[in-house]
């Protein structure tokens, strides 16, 4: 089974059968259309490419329009590729939330919220520099020493420093599917999912 592409709707909470409150993320998942089937003979590996969301033909590049025409579908907003183990898929086939079942564990991939330029304490979880008293002046949240002196004579590559944080691809593993709504193509997943509301997420089985 592959997965689905979806849109994060937001968070809420519902009650489980034994009366416990469960925090849930609502994801509008699918229906997705198979836009390309990759095979071992042609592409060297087996995969299936899915499309999700509508986009106007006039806003679609011509090469992509041709790509969608091959699959006999309208232009899609977002494309993603999924691994296939053994199952057969046809061009233009639609895949809905029905591939999932309540209680399944899924991985959700999203783009985390951008945090801008952040210091080492927030970005890498540094503890800051010791105390704020005893002569300490204005460097409580600074990184401290970034390395030795004349040997090696430079700062080591890859040293964790301040910089842009967030806005990167993040995977959250083993989220439980709490509820499925086939009517409106909704998935309720326990816990939080990376990204802001209305951002695309990929749900992998």
């Amino acid at each position, binding site marked *: 089974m592959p997965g689905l592409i979806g849109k994060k*709707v*937001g968070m*809420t*909470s*519902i*009650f489980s059968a*034994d*009366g416990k*409150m469960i925090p*849930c993320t*609502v994801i*509008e998942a699918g229906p997705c259309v198979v836009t390309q089937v990759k095979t071992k003979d042609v592409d060297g590996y087996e995969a299936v490419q899915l499309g999700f969301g509508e986009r106007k033909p006039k806003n679609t590049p011509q090469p992509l329009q041709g790509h969608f025409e091959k699959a006999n579908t309208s232009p899609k907003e977002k494309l993603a590729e999924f691994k296939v183990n053994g199952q057969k898929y046809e061009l233009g086939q639609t895949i809905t939330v029905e591939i999932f079942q309540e209680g399944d564990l899924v991985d959700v991939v999203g783009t985390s919220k951008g945090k801008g330029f952040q210091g080492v304490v927030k970005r890498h979880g540094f503890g800051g520099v010791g105390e704020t008293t005893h002569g300490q002046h204005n460097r409580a949240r600074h990184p401290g020493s970034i390395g030795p002196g004349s040997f090696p004579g430079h700062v080591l590559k890859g040293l964790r420093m301040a910089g842009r944080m967030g806005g990167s691809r993040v995977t959250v593993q083993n989220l439980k599917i709490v*509820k499925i*709504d086939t009517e*409106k193509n*909704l998935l*309720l997943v326990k816990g939080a999912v990376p990204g802001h509301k209305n951002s695309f997420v990929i749900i992998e089985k």
Partner: protein
Amino acid sequence: MDLIKYVQEKFVTTKKWPDFKAGDTITVTYMIKEGDKTRPQSFKGVVIQRRGSGATETFTIRKMSGEIGVERIFPINAPSISSIEVNKKGKVRRARIFYQRNRTGKAARIKEKRI
């Protein structure tokens, strides 16, 4: 937001309780599980706040257990709550009366609202 509302209406059964707000004294009866058996237990105290909206609304009640203050937070739609009874309507000026935590004895009294 519409889809969130749809989810809440579909998966959360909302319950009807009498009107109460911060300052009121209420008794909440809820079922607790002990092994396979469930039995009712009640908690009587002053409502400190109501928080959130819709299906995820919660309220906090506080009581003095001897010298020690005890607070409990209940989701309004929690399935375990079997009844809520309003014992006293309190006259307070705030929607969240956290100042009550710093008061003891005579100062902690809340005037009753006359209807």
